[in-house]
């Protein structure tokens, strides 16, 4: 029944107290998100109620219950970025990708998130795409940036 990979993750962290969050993180890392099946299996293996597991997952914004894009676009809306036009930049990104905050494009290339501060105020306005930080953005720059990611992403999946 249980996926081998998931069983390995649970094996690695054990079923004791305190293992739930690392197991959830690793599972999300592995599968991109936390599926209902995986959460049910984790709850079974850890002998924790599903409601408890779900409560933990929905408490932390780092966990996602739906499949996410290959590229996670985090748009900073912190103070410095805000004064340098982050809100309109966000709208441009949202329009370009065709998704609102918290959504994922149909081709599963991009997910879009609003975040409070990325800690790179000197580069405002700033966004992160996965682990890469892109600063001093303009509307034109961001459109080119997203187009580049799209090309790369499509090429890789082709």
């Amino acid at each position: 029944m249980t996926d081998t990979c998931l069983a390995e993750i649970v094996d690695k962290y054990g079923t004791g107290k305190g293992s739930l969050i690392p197991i959830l993180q690793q599972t999300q890392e592995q599968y991109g998100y936390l599926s209902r099946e995986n959460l049910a299996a984790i709850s079974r293996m850890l002998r924790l109620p599903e409601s408890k597991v779900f409560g933990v997952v929905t408490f932390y914004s780092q966990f996602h219950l739906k499949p996410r894009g290959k590229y996670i676009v985090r748009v900073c809306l912190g103070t410095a970025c805000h004064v340098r036009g982050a809100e309109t930049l966000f709208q441009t990104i949202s329009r370009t990708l065709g998704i609102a905050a918290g959504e994922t494009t149909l081709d599963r290339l991009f997910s879009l998130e609003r975040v409070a501060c990325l800690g790179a105020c000197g580069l405002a306005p700033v966004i992160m795409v996965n682990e890469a930080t892109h600063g001093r953005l303009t509307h034109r720059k961001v459109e080119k940036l997203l187009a580049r990611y799209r090309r790369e992403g499509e090429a890789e999946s082709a």
Partner: protein
Amino acid sequence: MQEIVLTIDGKQVTAEPGATLFQAAAAAGIEIPHLCTYRDLAPTGACRMCVVEVEGARTLMASCTVPAQHGMVVQTESPRVVEARRMILDLLLANHPLDCLTCEKSGACDLQDYAYRYQVAESSFAGEKKDHPADTSNPFFERDHNKCVLCGRCVEVCAVVPRRHAVDYVYRGFDTKVSTAFDVGLEDSSCVFCGACVESCPVGALTPVQSRGQGRQWELTPVSTICPYCGVGCQVDLLVRGGRIVGTRAGDGPANRGYLCSKGKFGLDFVHHEQRLTTPLIRKQGVLTQATWDEALDLVARRLRETVDRDGSDAVGALCSAKCTNEENYLLQKLFRAGIGTNNIDHCARLCHASTVAGLALAFGSGAMTNSIADVAEADVIFVIGSNTPEAHPVIGYQILRAHDEGATLVVADPRRVELADRADIYMQQLPGSDVALLNAMMHTIINEGLEDKRFIAERTEDYEAMAQAVKDTSPEWAADITGVDPGAIRAAARTFARAERASIIYSMGITQHTTGTDNVLSIANLAMLCGHIGRAGTGVNPLRGQNNVQGACDMGALPPFFPGYQRVDDDQVRARFEQAWGTKLPAVPGRTMLEMLDAALSGEIKAMFIMGENPMVSDPDIEHVRESLAALDFLVVADIFLTETAELADVVLPAACFAEKDGTFVNTERRVQLVRKAVDPPGQALADWEIITALAVKMGLNWDYRDSEQIAEEIRQLTPSYGGITRERLEGDGLQWPCPTEDHPGTPTLHVGKFTRGKGKFHAVEFRPPAEEPDDEYPVILTTGRILYHFHTGSMSRRSCGLDGIAPHGFVEMHPDLAADLGVDSGDPVRVLSRRGQVVTGALVTETIGRNVVFMPFHFAEGAANVLTNSALDPVARIPELKVCAVRLEPVGPGKEDQS
């Protein structure tokens, strides 16, 4: 330990060690406002309403989490405390709809009460309010998230009582709400609708659907009585307004301590169902037609007399009822024994625990549950065999699960991997009908490894050698072939059971409903005695009785060989005593059992029957045979609350009052006699069964003048030694557990302490015998039957409850995915199930929890009735039929093929 004395509101208070400030205050009669603290649940400190001022402490403290300490000076209503409470209320009201005018909870709402007490009319905070859609997915209760104050009582109570963990806090911050895993409706969660959360809710967030708009809280009159469903005997308050039961509340009875299951909480609306019988009916030209009581009873009296005069007393038989009160069962057996002169008296105990009564009487001298329900908390090991407790006896199920979570080892043997099995430390999935082999293999292991209790065996028992000889060759390897259970698991179970300090065996119909039912029970008695696990708290042989008053009906002599109190009819001294008391000659030969009466009806030896509150047309095996038998009678009278499948065949139908419409006593599975109280009037002309029987007796020329149930109870007490001390006054509150021979006797929570009822406990050599019908080429699959959580017995009550029938409207046949694949069916597809007796069509339910060659059907459903298929082969001693095992064949029902069965 040093005494803890502290000052609360200027009053000297002595606190129990470990008590919180909240508890210390409560014990001193000071109630501190609170929203999250609830009964004996662990405090969560969530709501902050219970803050108090402790002298010397910098901040206010939540009294529910602070331990009381010696010398503390505490203010529970100081200006600072009041200000804090007002602020909490202000914050709560900022996000709470103020619709008290129409809110169901108004009058019993803690938030409303505290807002009034601290005069907080509205919130001073403006802002967004929660706007979650309500969860209306289930037919029992609604969850309105917008009224929820997030106190967490429902989360905690669900975890602690039914132990389902159906809900928890989900999401975060302002969006936080109490919901299920994946935020689905409760109907799709692990919720079992016991309603504990509804009763715990301090506000209007959880409200029963049935009660909506039916009455304000202050208009409801509670009447304490006993739930009419299973044998647990939960106390329940019926909430009455204007002659109608509009709601229920769990009572604080010893069996249930403030909690119920879905049937007791939400399943009592059948009382006011439109199909209740309201007038007597007489069959005229083949049609049941309304009649007066005089007409109906004249006819019944005349026809019974004519039958007796023509064919003799034994041409008449009666079925008493495990649903009716002690007093009613006593009267019906008295009418038939004394008024008619026959011992042809039985009832549905024949179908459930006849083998327990027979087997335990042989082994111990008393055929009842040896220990008390609450005792399960004291066991180190709980061995559950053939009992799906969380569904069939839910409130005992909660207590088993709790004991397990709190450290008891749980060993489960069941052909289906039911919930208990899933949670068990050791689980054995034996094939239906292989229990003796399993138990003998356990005992083989125990003796082989020297784990038996030699001292107990020597001092308290007899015939040990014969039993030891019988299990000499029954190794776990030998049993593995018969039971399908891994020998390792059998050994582990045996060792665990034997090594326990206190081990309790809990069983039910998985053990009893076999042609080897008595053997199964004897084997269980053997196992308990072998390890000395009997006669102490936390141990015992504990058969869970099925019906609300099946224990009482047995106690009252609704059995062919017994007068009340298991006094034999063929004992001359006993009979002489009853002859004197009842003023007439009494028959000395035990009568026919239930299924023997049906056989005799078919063969013409029994011509007339009186059936009170029983429905053999659904409950008995081989229904076609039952139909032919009842149809062969010259005259059939049925007294019931609905026109049941059996009543439809009657010549006269008498409308009876239900449990809520009369006074009397029920006896629960732990031998506890409890008071049943009238809450509402019966519908139309319906009468209590004791009134019907008394009126009939008078029509038959007997000089009976029973005026109330108490008068009957007093007569029972005089004639039944084990009830000798059970007076009506003494039953207030917790009731009494028999034996209770004298008025100063406290009752008996545990049987066989120090000495068995029969003196020495008697071992029996029991050899494995296979079931009467085993699978073969023609009928290759084993069918087993049982109950489900949401229905009871033949469904005459539960299927007329909106909620219960709403959530479980159909029968089904449970099968393993491999079998389903062979048949090419999926869950929900119609399947034809055929046995040598008949065939039915029902929906498939595919599940891995059942063995590959076993199918399961609940027997509650008259349509597609499981008992059309079951085998009426009988246990030779107890005459109980083998409802748990028969051989069947399954066929898919293709689209377009109309079912004719």
